[in-house]
């Protein structure tokens, strides 16, 4: 097993555990500290969830009643998005458009699925490497934080860790239950 992947998975599990134990804002602040504090490690904990998802052909967990139109800005996963929605750009809510790369670092939101009433951690990964898609701009910003709380800010170009920072669009990956 790749030791870095193992390390990342440990951190991801830890982060999810922490999220379940603490209030949302408290969790997010701590997570921000954690993310920045570990920034010298090449692969970041929660960020890596997105990267692994991209590598392994991420499949959303089965969520009862995950209904709605992913090309609609009111779709429940987009509660904290600020960007062009991937499903309008050739991708899906959980995959990037052809020829773009999913960002390895990202910001995290918590959205309530109206179908089951549960809160879920949503990872808003940017799709990088091509010009802006300019379709279906969606700007919901729920609990968006200023740029100094980096892991909670959607005013950052999250393609920042890529060889090209060209921003194309954004996906909304369900990482797990936030209140479980």
């Amino acid at each position, binding site marked *: 097993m790749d030791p870095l992947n193992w390390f990342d998975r440990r951190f991801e599990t830890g982060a999810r555990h922490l999220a379940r134990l603490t209030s949302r804002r408290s969790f997010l602040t701590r997570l921000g500290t954690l993310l920045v504090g570990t920034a010298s490690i090449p692969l970041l904990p929660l960020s890596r969830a997105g990267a692994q998802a991209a590598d392994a052909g991420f499949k959303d967990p089965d969520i009862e009643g995950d209904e709605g139109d992913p090309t609609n800005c009111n779709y429940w996963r987009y509660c904290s998005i600020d960007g062009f929605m991937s499903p309008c750009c050739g991708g899906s809510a959980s995959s990037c458009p052809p020829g773009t790369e999913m960002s390895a670092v990202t910001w995290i939101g918590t959205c309530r699925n109206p179908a089951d009433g549960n809160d879920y951690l949503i990872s808003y990964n940017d799709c990088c490497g*091509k010009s802006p898609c300019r379709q279906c701009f969606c700007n919901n910003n729920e609990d968006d934080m200023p*740029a*100094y709380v980096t892991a909670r800010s959607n005013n950052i170009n999250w393609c920042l860790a890529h060889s*090209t920072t060209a921003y194309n669009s954004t996906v909304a990956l369900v990482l797990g239950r936030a209140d479980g």
Partner: protein
Amino acid sequence: MRDRRTWQVGSVYWNWTLCLRYTNIMTPQKHPIRAIAILIGLAFAAAANICASQDFDSFGRSEVLPDPERDWVFVDYSLVDATDDHFLGLIGVAQAGRPAAFRFSPDGLSLFLVETFYTRGNRGERTDTVTIFDTATLGVAGEVVIPPKRALLLVVEGTLALTDNGRFLGVFNLTPATSISVVDIESKSFVGEISTPGCSLVFSAGDRSYMMICANGDLLTVTLDEDGREVSKERTERFFDPETDPVREPGVRYGDEWLFVSFDGYLHTVDISGEMPRVGESWSLLTASDREQNWRIAGRQPLTVHQQSGRLYVLARQNDEPLDDPADVDGTEIWSFDLASRERLQRLEARPESAASGGAAATLGSTSGDGASNILVTQGDDPLLVSAGGTGISVRHALTGEYLHERLQHAPSNGWLALRMR
């Protein structure tokens, strides 16, 4: 501009050329002696100023800006005379898609901003530069290559700071590790990078120091030595609580203080006159009655200060719900406060009644378009209040609120506002 060799007769400019052409048409080719005679006659007549004709334009001339005036304002990269409604010129940046923070050298001859380049347009090898522009031409005068780490944000203020001694530029980096790249503008060289874990954005905090805001609400002070290298990094007292009411990024300078507004409408002050920043008492820009009526502080560039009078201008709007990202919605009113007494002095409309609302379609960095997103006040006596909305720029006398231009005709319709420092 008219050439010295040109004369004006009625509404027509004349010089020798037109006169000779006319002569040529009138001269039958089969009578060369007669033609020569006419030409000689005309030459004498012209010498006596009887005949005037249009002059040649000189080729290859470009304007050079005169000494700046106090009402010159940048709207993103365009320089505009706010009194005369005159477009003066454009900064020659490579990418004008997003606004950038500017800083000026103490002598006012140079302007600095940060740019990012790829060898193949938007791909290839990345190079970041502090680009130096000549303020008389707004053209490139040089560059300093810095590590390719500068933060790419929708935020303008806090990305570039110049120490108060006017020598060291600090560029905020985010990879997402946070750090500052220091550039010596005297020697035009990169000095080094200073790691600033957990703390972001960069503001000047004295002759050789910067202030940063940390994710937990602390302030970080970074102090430099005479050569711009790190001497110390020290976290100071808790500035605010990000879990209850975070401050917004676009701070403004008022003398030796930085002013920031929180999401919930409180003004926070930081005094940087001492060795370490000192946090002042915060106070509410909203009265109890304002809060009952759901007034909020909004706008992308929500604060501006007239230094001489100590008058603060802010953008405000009514919104039933608290604003998740106040930068994305315009203020519908501009309020002014006396910073000493904390009294509200003026309530002005943010957008002239005659002006249309709207503007650009919703996209990254756009705002609601129903008021003004950016405000700036000029300095000195009789300051001007410049406000930018989705559909245009308004200019008025800041102290009276009286319009000078409801909408500028020769300026971009919106953008980040910055003073041309003198």
